[in-house]
């Protein structure tokens, strides 16, 4: 079955993104150089998305981790980086794919509280802009007026705040919503 971009986007958001905490853990576990991890994550996502454009994988979780494993193997083969640990761990990866990931943990996380902690970690002025925009619902222009700063600066604050908040949110499995 092939789907349109909007449907693939929705599928990706629903099936793939909730795996991010587990995926990052997997990559960190199996790759020595942690500065590569963000690139790896995006590469895995890009590959999964490309594959889904042709055919949506039936078992998203297995597919994501198989993709991650293949990527690591590719990188070792190409000698992109030569981490001894990664090479010796390649067989262990096979096992890791089937191991239950943190996303199976149905502990619901207090998302708002985490958001709040995330907000508190932003630089003060940046946080102020995000609070005004996200909680008070002000427009960028209104934020600029309220804070007495240039609109371009507001943009920068919102951009940084948005990136940081999302990063923190994905670093833990999402809140589980179940039928009651």
């Amino acid at each position, binding site marked *: 079955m092939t789907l349109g971009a909007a449907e693939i986007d929705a599928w990706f958001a629903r099936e793939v993104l909730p795996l991010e905490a587990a995926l990052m853990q997997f990559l960190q576990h199996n790759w020595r150089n942690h500065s590569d991890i963000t690139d790896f994550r995006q590469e895995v*996502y890009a590959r999964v998305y490309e594959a889904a454009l042709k055919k949506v994988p039936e078992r998203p979780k297995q597919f994501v981790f198989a993709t991650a494993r293949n990527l690591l193997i590719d990188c070792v083969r190409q000698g992109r980086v030569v981490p001894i640990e990664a090479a010796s761990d390649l067989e262990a990866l096979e096992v890791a794919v089937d191991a239950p990931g943190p996303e199976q943990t149905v502990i619901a996380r207090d998302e708002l509280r985490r958001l709040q902690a995330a907000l508190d970690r932003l630089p003060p002025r940046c946080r102020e802009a995000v609070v005004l925009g996200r909680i*008070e619902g002000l427009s960028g222009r209104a934020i600029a007026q309220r804070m007495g700063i240039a609109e371009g600066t507001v943009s920068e604050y919102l951009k940084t705040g948005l990136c940081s908040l999302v990063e923190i949110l994905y670093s833990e499995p999402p809140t589980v919503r179940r039928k009651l």
Partner: protein
Amino acid sequence: MSERPIVSNAREIDAMAADWLQRRDFWNWSEADEAALEAWLSESVVHRVAFVRLQTGWGRTERLAALRPASDGGIGGAWRGQVVPTLIRATAALCVCGVVGFLAFRQPAGPQEKVYAASLGNRESINLTDGSQIDLNTNTSVRTLIGGGERKVWLEHGEAYFQVKHDAAHPFVVIAGNRRITDLGTKFLVRREGDELKVSVIEGKVQLDAAGAGAQPQSTELNPGEVAIAKNETLSVFSHAQKSLTDQLGWRRGVVVFNHTTLATAVAEFNRYNDHKIVIADATTANLAIGGTFRTTDLESFIDVTQHVLGLHVVNQGNKTVISR
């Protein structure tokens, strides 16, 4: 895999995607802008996944908006003039006073005031004259004022489970510190520990009110599966899986249930029920996950698991047990 080079600038692309998002959400957005965004997304699947990822995560922050005071539409209302520096300040506006309740129990006729308590490691069940039931967990004390149209309970400290007989004409109110929980026909759990208050709704609905000096009255309605945590002036609401709520009520059967719970949380939970305390020596140990169901008073089994399943060192030191790597 494809002709596309392997991703090497993920952070840069994330920043670009974030810029598109904030431009779309906070500034004037024309059809030309939309077309430009579409073009950027079509340029590379790497752009698209970055954008979808950020957009989805950003969507999750929407719940933040729920903290905004409902009555003033946000702009120029309660927070006029001063920029709200943190979410903590922002949520202060959600508060109302519970002190009013204290005036009621002085009335001579009708309502009767009573005090109930469960000591450390014990639990109690109270049947109120209005047909409602309260279960008290370890180290808990409540004061009740029932009768003559009054139905009020003060949770002084600890944790209590309420099964309320609904009576729309006479709302059942639980007061915990400066917060007030009003039953809208329901079963709910209230836990008060230090300055933190946690309200979990199992069935029906409750209304949670709080008060900050001079703030206009605000209230939050909680539905089944929703849990509110109030601390100082902050209020967070989130959803729990049904199972996790049932687990939280394990104490009514005399058990605690852990499901990938950190050792720190599990130990804190055990320490609520026992004089003999468990102490964790280091952060790594504190972050280990543990699962299972234990009797609240069966420290031995719990310590056994940490020792033999998690492989930790256990040292007994008089009235405490120290667990370390």
